[in-house]
């Protein structure tokens, strides 16, 4: 299916949803606009533009006839998926395992596991990155980082 048609339907739904929520928030009057006034206008505008994109997707033209699968054709989408999943895992583990351990794992898994960089390089780069960031954030900016099971 045409990619613009799919995306415009999504945005239309988003706009419609915000119109609904805005009406419930209260529109107020033009003399005293309520909380829903601006979100309503924005939502209506999004719907209008989505409709326009939807209609344009029926026009002829080479670049307009792009299906959904074409968006992921010829790219290493597994790599971006892996990075996304690893990022999610990092967030989930951060407060339990602690900053240092989780970060080290993330860097090593990506560089060694995903990108096949040599162990030596991976470890040196990871440890230097960690040490520098620890210095900047913890020592210099006095930020709180989750200590976790290692205690730092």
């Amino acid at each position: 299916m045409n990619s613009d048609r799919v995306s415009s339907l999504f945005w239309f739904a988003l706009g419609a949803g915000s119109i609904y929520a805005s009406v419930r928030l209260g529109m107020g009057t033009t003399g005293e606009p309520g909380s829903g006034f601006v979100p309503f206008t924005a939502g209506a505008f999004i719907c209008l533009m989505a409709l326009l994109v939807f209609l344009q997707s029926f026009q002829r033209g080479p670049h307009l006839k792009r299906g959904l699968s074409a968006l992921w054709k010829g790219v290493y989408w597994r790599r971006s998926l892996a990075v996304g999943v690893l990022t999610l895992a990092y967030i989930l583990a951060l407060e339990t395992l602690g900053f240092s351990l989780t970060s080290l794992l993330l860097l090593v898994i990506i560089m060694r596991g995903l990108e096949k960089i040599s162990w030596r390089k991976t470890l040196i780069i990871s440890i230097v990155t960690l040490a520098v960031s620890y210095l900047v954030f913890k020592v210099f900016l006095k930020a709180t980082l989750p200590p976790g099971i290692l205690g730092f």
Partner: protein
Amino acid sequence: MDFFANMITGFSVALEPMNLLFCFIGVFVGTLIGVLPGIGPVGTMAILLPITYGIPPTTAIIMLSGIYYGAQYGGSTTSILVGIPGEAASVITTIDGYQMALQGRAGPALGIAAFGSFIAGTIGIVGLQLLAPPLVSVALRFGPPEYFSLMILGLVILTYLAQKSMAKALMMAGVGILLGTVGLDTMNGVPRFTVGVPELLDGIGIAPLAMGLFGISEILLNVEQKLKHEIVTTELKHLLPSAKDWGESIGPILRSSIVGFFLGILPGGGAVLASFVTYGMEKRLSKTPEQFGKGAIAGVAAPESANNAAAQGAFIPLLTLGIPANVVMGMLLGALMIHNIVPGPMMIKDHPDLFWGVIASMYVGNVMLLILNLPLIGLWVKLLQVPYSILFPMILFVCLLGGYVINNSTFDLYLMLFFGVAGYLMRKFDYEPAPLILAYVLSSLLENALRQSLILSGGSLQIFVTRPISAGCLILAVVLLASSILPRIRERRKMLVEQAEEAT
């Protein structure tokens, strides 16, 4: 005279050791990311935004500004040596710069880019310094309706210039405004779109939003591609351009500085547009236009000067009106708002140390950049050889670290990842996040201006068309919207956008 008194104030702030340090960090990081393809100034500023929470606002703005104008310097290095633009504003430099490198003239190309940038940057700062105060006095007469209309015009110009599909760009602006309304309504404390999540009562933070849309999503998109680039392995000698080179370049540098500066002031204009326009202008003015595209030094000098002057010019709308001219300025506005400083006509009076300090720091930063980019050019060339496989895990890690320390909670990280994935999908489907983030930053200002205007007028929308400045802005916005539908103009706009798009 005021001019000198202000400059003394400015330099006394800019030369404080702490500010000097952060100015250096800013221009250094700016050059760094300018050199590296795959990460731009907006993403970098977003990533470094959390750091600015812990430092004084003046220092923060000095650093963030340095990233922006520093990136204009660094971008040229990649364009010339690799033939891939380091930044969107250096796209056009690639044409003649890379040709010069292939002919063994990489040295003078880099040299003229750095000197041109320095001259233009300095001209830009002088312009900024001279133009800002009188504009402030004009801006002081602006009421809510004028602000509202001006912001609308700004958003329209931005979408007009920067996008393939204007409908999509305008839609993204709408989404940005919507995202900006999340949280407590400032007027009456009613929670909006918080879906029962207490963390959302304060609204969606600019840091997780921008880091997601520009940091994480860029990583996700880049790792799908195998980024490979080859550096022209010429020995970097004779960085100092010869007298002949100077003769061919000085005219373009001066002209492009002035044109670039004024284009930078325009909303949505900025460095990218300036580099394209001045290249075309110099080609037309040149006695040897056939040399353009084959390694004409003027083809490097003009756009590189213009993008620096424009980077300075872009500060004017933000510092005088409080309205960001482009996304980078939007990030600066966000940073100021984090520190509870509302930029605009009052800032020059309320925070003179910030205003003049930032301007003075630009002089200092430009000198630092000249030193960083000429004698140390070899360092940047080495950096170009660092593969993306090593860079992106580090960028990702800094994003995660920065996202966490804002509120010491993982909530912002989830938000960041969410917007990262959203940004990835948006770009896949050809929706640019720039109008979204700019509209998001403007959202609360826009809403307040609208509500105040309507309260002023007792509910009549006529207030926007009966006041001349407001009416003028709205008419211009409508004209632009209408003209984008006309086929001939649409084609020309598309060409400009596609040229810029090709290499980014």
